[in-house]
């Protein structure tokens, strides 16, 4: 049950704590870090999509001004282990790969060598002097290239360019399709795009030549995952040496055992469900995997130097700073080899080339429906283009499983089949991007509009007819997860219809058409598992839930202030503000008294996820709430001793702990801290009282839901799409800080609009990247993004800490709402929208104003 809280801060548009430094130029981003004696790195990158490296000559480059060292792939092999696949699904092959290309390059931008010099400019000068001879191979670029049986495998051990195939069936699919009055099928293609945080990637490996300490300063969304991955990759020594070192260092072994036990605490049941057949399959296909695994594991246990990851301010990520970069491993390895600090800050061209790209998926969807619009079944075929190198720790496999679970959406669909294929190609790395499963929503919501049009129904009526309504909950999605009463998608749709008045719009649209103007409206509804019910993670991939619990540590300091330690990695989500709001309300102190510590693996709790998956509010915020309550209990116990009062009679108001109604005789937090410290024999530097809480969401879970409505006007002569109005009705439960929620939603919508109308990571048929600057990769500006109206439905819940995720939803809802609106505007011209990228020239092609140019797609 909910505990009543005075609630001074939660729900308020509290100003951001972060702004005090970020708006005055006093932030500390990774590019601002430069230890004494740092050398700077520049990477030499492949100009070819697919080629063998014949020879590398860096003799001239090595003599260039200011050059300290140059390392090629062959040399990196002696300093590192390859990246080894982390999450293997049954039947999946994930190639192990090295931090630098060794004998072959696999995409334009593949790092081949690293140059270290006294300045970045000198390193870049010398990088141009490295002579590399390549032997070009036939590039595999598109999904169709990769699926061709005669395409040469990019990873020979895989045997083909198909890395993963799966078939999942739920319910009686064939029967549903046999019984249905109508079957509709359409194939939807989404282009490749890029996360594009304004701060590029970068890192500084700070090496103290006098000690074993290595601090890896990074812009990362997941510091602990980065730390352990880097440790595994850079722990390059023979297994024999590792075993000898371990035998001589039992303290280390014990420390690891303790760490592993803590990391796995309470997750044993989850882990038992994990299926290890994927790893076995992997080892069979490429037996070297076993050698690399053993060497990395033993090396990690015994390496002399173990990196500590530190991140401070981070300039956005949107998923791109969660994966571990190969460059990170190169920089750490060469810094340890040279025994000096090394810095690498990526430039924008590199970021557009190798900073991670996303989407690039094809979904064929069939709906079996009755003439009245009742959906009987759904079939889908998904192909994902993973590019050349798999993401670490998570690759396409995991995201395909999320799509599997989410594809039926918020609708009553009792029969569902999905066929999944993941292919390799000579493109950049596929990484998660804000709602990595988003294309399931896009394709399904697009297809529902197609079905409605074919049936002559309104798209909103078709949705409402098939959607789970609150009175039908709880229910179970056919793919497994429980839909509890927080799944309010239908309520958001109904509210959106009231606000948008689609019937009135239809009359306006008709009138506009008669005068040559093209107006359209589009709806899209989705739910997101943030936090999601416990059976959600099991449905995605059994055992993965074990990785997701999150610990919050909290302490009352000797001076009476409160410190929260989190594994979250804020990079724009304002955790310092919202977590202080949550803790201050629990503890009854001004929020200025609460400080958040994050980003340093040395003094934050372990967690693999970092910040991602819209979990900062639901999981991280919940963990803070419950750890704060545990601390409050301890503080009150201590105060009861001091005040010689019954703990049940105490209250805390504005940081004053007193017997209810007798504030004059109260004790401050500092006084309680002093008493606790002296009782504990402390000397005042250590925290006086500590508490912690490990949390993985409420037992019932919870869903974030929204309906987006987009209006468009299309210029029939230029094909230019404008958005006169955009509306979001969302339900994320209780809002800790509405201004921060609104910023998250609007920012997500802006990225979704950019995806449809402007942004495209464009490769030509040879795998050459055509969009490596902001002149070609079009980022939306203030002129392109409309005002976005927001309506909040804060559905109350018996769930305590009823915070549901808002990080990703905006970017999930916008592409279907916008593409639906565009088709709606062009419907009378016979246009069907089956692709996601719709720049003006493509609109004109679809409307027949200009001839289609296939090469431009």
């Amino acid at each position: 049950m909910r505990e009543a809280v005075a609630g001074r801060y939660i729900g308020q548009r509290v100003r951001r704590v972060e702004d005090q430094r970020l708006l005055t130029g006093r932030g500390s981003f990774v590019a601002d870090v430069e230890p004494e004696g740092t050398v700077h790195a520049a990477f030499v990158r492949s100009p070819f999509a697919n080629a063998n490296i014949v020879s590398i000559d860096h003799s001239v480059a090595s003599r260039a001004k200011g050059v300290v060292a140059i390392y090629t792939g062959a040399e990196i092999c002696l300093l590192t282990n390859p990246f080894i696949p982390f999450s293997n699904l049954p039947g999946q092959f994930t190639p192990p790969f090295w931090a630098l290309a060794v004998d072959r390059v696999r995409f334009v931008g593949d790092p081949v060598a690293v140059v270290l010099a006294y300045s970045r400019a000198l390193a870049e000068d010398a990088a141009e002097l490295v002579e590399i001879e390549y032997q070009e191979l036939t590039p595999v670029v598109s999904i169709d290239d990769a699926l061709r049986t005669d395409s040469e495998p990019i990873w020979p051990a895989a045997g083909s360019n198909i890395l993963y195939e799966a078939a999942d069936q739920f319910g009686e699919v064939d029967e549903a399709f046999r019984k249905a009055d109508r079957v509709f099928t359409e194939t939807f293609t989404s282009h490749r795009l890029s996360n594009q945080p304004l701060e590029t990637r970068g890192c500084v490996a700070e090496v103290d030549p006098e000690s074993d300490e290595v601090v890896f300063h990074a812009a990362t969304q997941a510091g602990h995952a980065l730390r352990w991955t880097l440790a595994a990759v850079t722990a390059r020594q023979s297994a024999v040496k590792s075993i000898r070192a371990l035998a001589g260092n039992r303290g280390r072994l014990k420390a690891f055992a303790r760490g592993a036990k803590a990391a796995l605490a309470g997750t044993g049941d989850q882990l038992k469900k994990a299926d290890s057949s994927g790893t076995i399959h992997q080892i069979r296909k490429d037996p070297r995997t076993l050698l690399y695994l053993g060497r990395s594991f033993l090396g990690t246990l015994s390496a002399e130097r173990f990196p500590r990851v530190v991140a401070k301010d981070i300039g956005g990520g949107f998923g791109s700073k969660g994966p571990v970069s190969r460059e990170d491993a190169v920089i750490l390895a060469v810094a340890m080899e040279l025994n000096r600090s090394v810095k690498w800050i990526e430039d924008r061209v590199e970021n557009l080339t190798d900073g991670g790209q996303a989407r690039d998926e094809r979904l064929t969807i069939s709906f079996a429906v009755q003439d009245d619009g009742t959906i009987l079944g759904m079939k889908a075929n998904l192909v994902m283009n993973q590019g050349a190198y798999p993401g670490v720790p998570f690759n396409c496999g995991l995201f395909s499983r999320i799509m599997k679970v989410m594809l039926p959406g918020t609708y009553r669909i009792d029969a569902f089949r999905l066929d999944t294929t993941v292919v390799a190609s000579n493109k950049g790395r596929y990484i998660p991007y804000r709602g990595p499963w988003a294309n399931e929503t896009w394709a399904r919501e697009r297809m529902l509009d197609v079905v409605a049009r074919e049936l002559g129904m309104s798209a909103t009526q078709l949705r409402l007819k098939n959607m789970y309504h609150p009175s039908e909950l709880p229910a179970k999605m056919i793919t497994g997860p429980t839909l509890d009463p927080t799944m309010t998608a239908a309520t958001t749709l109904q509210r959106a219809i009231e606000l948008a008045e689609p019937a009135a719009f239809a009359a306006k649209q008709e009138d506009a058409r008669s005068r040559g103007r093209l107006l359209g409206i589009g709806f899209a509804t989705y739910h997101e598992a943030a936090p999601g019910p416990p059976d959600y993670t099991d449905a995605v991939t059994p055992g993965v839930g074990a990785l997701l619990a999150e610990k919050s540590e909290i302490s009352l300091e000797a001076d009476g202030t409160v410190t929260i330690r989190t594994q979250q990695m804020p990079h724009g989500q304002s955790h310092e503000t919202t977590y202080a709001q949550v803790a201050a309300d629990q503890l009854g102190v001004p929020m200025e008294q609460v400080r958040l510590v994050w980003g340093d693996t040395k003094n934050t709790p372990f967690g693999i996820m970092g910040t991602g998956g819209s979990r900062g509010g639901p999981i991280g915020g919940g963990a803070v709430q419950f750890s704060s309550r545990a601390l409050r209990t301890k503080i009150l116990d201590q105060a009861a001793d001091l005040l010689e009062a019954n703990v049940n009679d105490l209250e805390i108001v504005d940081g004053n702990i007193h017997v209810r109604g007798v504030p004059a005789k109260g004790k401050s937090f500092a006084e309680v801290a002093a008493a606790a410290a002296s009782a504990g024999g402390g000397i005042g530097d250590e925290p006086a009282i500590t508490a912690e809480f490990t949390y993985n969401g409420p037992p019932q879970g919870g869903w974030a839901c929204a309906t987006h409505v987009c209006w468009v006007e299309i210029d029939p002569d230029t094909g230019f799409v404008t958005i006169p109005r955009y509306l979001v009705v969302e339900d994320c439960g209780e809002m800790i800080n509405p201004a921060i929620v609104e910023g998250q939603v609007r920012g997500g919508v802006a990225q979704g609009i950019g995806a449809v109308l402007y942004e495209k990571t464009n490769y030509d048929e040879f795998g050459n990247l055509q969009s490596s600057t902001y002149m070609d990769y079009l980022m939306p500006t203030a002129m392109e993004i409309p005002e976005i109206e927001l309506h909040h439905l804060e559905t109350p819940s018996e769930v305590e800490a009823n915070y549901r995720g808002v990080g990703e939803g905006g970017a999930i809802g916008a592409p279907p709402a916008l593409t639906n609106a565009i088709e709606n505007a062009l419907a009378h011209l016979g246009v069907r929208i089956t692709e996601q990228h719709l720049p003006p020239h493509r609109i004109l092609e679809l409307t027949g104003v200009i001839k289609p140019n296939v090469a431009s797609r």
Partner: protein
Amino acid sequence: MNSPSATATQSAMGSLHSPIDGTATIELEVNGVGVTRRVNARLSLADFLRERLDLTGTHLGCEHGVCGACTVVLNDEAVRSCLILAVQADGSRITTIEGLAETDHDGQIISIHPIQRAMQEAHGFQCAFCAPGFLMTALCFLERNPAPTRAQIREEISGNLCRCTGYQSIIAGVETAVEIMAADRREGAQDA
């Protein structure tokens, strides 16, 4: 992959330069303080501010003049410090994000600028990597046009990219700044 490196060896403003080693001595005023430095002719103003003066509040987002994160004020004009060479700034007056707030001798902030206050009130930014550029851009155009319409604000900030916010909160922040600055001016007029 490497960013285009500038090769100019001559300052547009005729500073002392050495054709032999490609360096030049420049004198300029940064945030009200006079500085003299010998610099490489190809050093950008952004790198000069960040690396030579340790003014790391100016951020580099794209290094090819599109994103606007590196915007600073040069003689009352908003410029992209990634596209200007340090030698071109010889003899100029530069204001960076660090120079917006009023500070004491130790650099401690006494009071923040109305634009900073407004952005905080409006929740203008999220990661705020782009914020310095937006603030310097806004500062300059509000000097020219202290009472802009929303459409004018939208257009004026459209040369700066923000990936987090969708811009609405930044526009609201500029509108709040207009109000605060107008109120300050009224107060100032009354005091006079």
